[in-house]
């Protein structure tokens, strides 16, 4: 028995080893190495000096960094929206109606499309003379063209929408997997007891999806705080600092301005923030189990 368990765990580790190795080299090591770097003025090209906690004190006096943190927190608002819509989509594509396979595939296409392509397509659609303005002007919702990505009041929300549009299919698939694990007899029993479609969702589906909701929410929060691609491609943080997110600012400080020591300090602060948010999400989702009705 003990031997079997040992050989089984050995096999598990063996399967995980390649992935873990990559993670160790490209994720864990840079994170660990970032800690000593954050205490220096490392810039790759010039002599490095130890600066103690200067980078951290500078970070909390850096107006642009504080704005970028705030924007990243605002970006987290996309999480509940994306989760609710993807759960509803999963419930829809899980029903036994013919032709739904096509929708399932269609919703998933944005997920596998490169973010660069997605960003460029949306930049055309949202351009001054793009399709979005054209349609909204036609139906009378707008009276004049709106520069969606160049206007501070709309740019961040437009980017959040693009993030949501691209991620929906991914979360839908995860929830779909969860839905297909819910035993059909639970629904049968609920129906016998007189539950309608809405009560089925509230009292059967959602409680049993809780582990999936927790997982999806955590990774979605992490993704929202770390968002980079769409912001960098479409607005580079502009106009002004309207869409400056923490990842974009860290990239600019490190890879564009060669302040790697400072960028490492910013990265550590953001990592701590993401960890705190993840813990918060776990705590909020700790209660659970199947509700009786």
């Amino acid at each position, binding site marked *: 028995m003990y031997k079997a368990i040992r050989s089984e765990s050995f096999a598990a580790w063996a399967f995980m080893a390649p992935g873990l190795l990559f993670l160790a080299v490209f994720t864990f090591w840079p994170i*660990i*190495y970032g*800690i*000593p*770097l954050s*205490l*220096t*003025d*490392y*810039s*790759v*090209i*010039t*002599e*490095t*000096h*130890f*600066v103690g906690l200067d980078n951290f004190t500078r970070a909390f006096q850096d*107006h*642009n960094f504080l704005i970028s943190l705030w924007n990243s927190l605002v970006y987290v608002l996309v999480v509940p929206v994306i989760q609710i819509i993807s759960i509803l989509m999963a419930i829809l594509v899980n029903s036994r109606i013919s032709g739904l396979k096509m929708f399932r595939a269609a919703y998933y296409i944005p997920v596998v499309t490169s973010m660069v392509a997605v960003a460029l397509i949306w930049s055309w659609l949202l*351009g*001054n*003379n793009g399709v979005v303005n054209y349609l909204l002007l036609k139906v009378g919702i707008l009276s004049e063209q709106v*520069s969606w990505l*160049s*206007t*501070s009041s709309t740019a961040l929300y437009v980017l959040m929408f693009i993030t949501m549009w691209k991620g929906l299919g991914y979360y839908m698939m995860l929830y779909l997997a969860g839905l297909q694990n819910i035993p059909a007899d639970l629904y049968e029993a609920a129906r016998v007891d007189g539950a309608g479609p809405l009560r089925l969702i509230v009292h059967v589906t959602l409680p049993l999806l809780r582990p999936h909701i927790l997982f999806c929410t955590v990774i979605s929060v992490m993704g929202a705080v770390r968002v980079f691609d769409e912001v960098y491609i479409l607005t580079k*943080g*502009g*106009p*002004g*600092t*309207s869409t400056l997110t923490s990842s974009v600012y860290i990239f*600019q400080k490190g*890879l*564009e*301005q*060669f*302040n790697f*020591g*400072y960028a490492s300090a910013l990265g550590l602060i953001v990592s701590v923030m993401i960890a705190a948010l993840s813990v918060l999400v776990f705590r909020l989702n700790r209660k659970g189990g199947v509700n009786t009705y």
Partner: protein
Amino acid sequence: MTTNRKGFTVSLLLVVMMSMLLAACGGNDNTAGTPSPGSTGEAGSEAGKPVTLEFWTIALQPTFNDYFNDLISKYESSHPGVTVEWKDYPYDAISQRLLTSTASGKSPDVVNLNTEFASQLGSKGALLNLNEYLTDEQAKSYFEGIYNSTIVDGKAYALPWYTGTEVLFMNTRLVKEAGLDPANPPQTREELVEWARQVYEKTGVAGYAQQLVSKLFPIDGIPILNEDKTAAAFNTPEAEAMIAQMRDLMAEGVVLKEDAEFSKQIQYFSGEQVAFQLSGPTFINFIKKSAPDVYKNTIAVTLPTGKANLRLSNSMDLVVPQKSKNPEQAVEFAAFMTNAENQTAFSKVANTLPSSKASIEDPFFTQSDGSLEAEAKVASSQSLDKATDYMVGVPNAGDINSALARGLQEILMNGADIKETLNAVEKEVNQILNQDS
């Protein structure tokens, strides 16, 4: 036992972290020897030792392979023992490549960078001071304004290579429709604004689109930094007036209310959503492909000047990284690539402008066959003697540019208060100047 193990693990982690910290604080080997002005005149490698020079350019392969291969073999045959390895990278990748190769101790010897990036690296001490290697005669062979653009604290960090100055492209169909005469183009920014206003009133098409960048200040004679480059100098009533005028023009519709990157500007001009375009001659290649009809109706004239009465150059440079293992040979090769003869030849194959004074005397830069390309070339080459880069000698140019661009966007796109924003950007720029990192 467990506590001991935990303690051991924590100690081990601390030791590892401290050793990494010490490693990160390691010295910076400067392999450059003691130079002497004019040492670039020597042929071949020192004491006959074979030398390999790594030469990096931005986006010039495969279009100009023949030109470079010919030039490199000519150089190698006249410099026995010297081998030049030419590598070419996309514009977006070269800075990352330079960082990674420098970090791994394999610095290239001669690198093609733009002026902003060269100033940024130079002020961080990552590039050789070329003043220590070049003779006066060599330094004076370049247009002064362009050569001086990468001098920070009296140190010249780059040799100017191919360059460009902006010209004014005009959509003659729209200009004529507005009742204006393209044969008498506007000479000043004020006249250009008047023309743009008339085009907008008569045709409904905006005058022009532009990117909100720091060069808007020096165009109107507002210095970005003070004389000795130690503090911001742009927070002035003149700057407030300039930005307020820009804001009003955007509100009127005369200038597009957008922070338009070059690709966006191409779209607007191609789609006849603007009548004018202010940019370098390379702009022609894009509209020729994307909008042949607009191309037919376009003419190029000398760029109207702002209050400062100067025209800005946009140069590519050659630099020698501080960590090059063959600094003398590297400077010599960079000087060879940027000498008048080779710059003239490159301008002819690449349709760019030279930064060497002697090149401009070639008939190629004064004669026009009437084509838009030739008009643009002649119009822009006439501005070279007055041309200067707008980040002349600015340390950490990249950081300062970002701060100014963000400030302009806040005011013009987000409606922020002009004075408050200028105060905030001034504070930020002064912080950048006072930081060592």
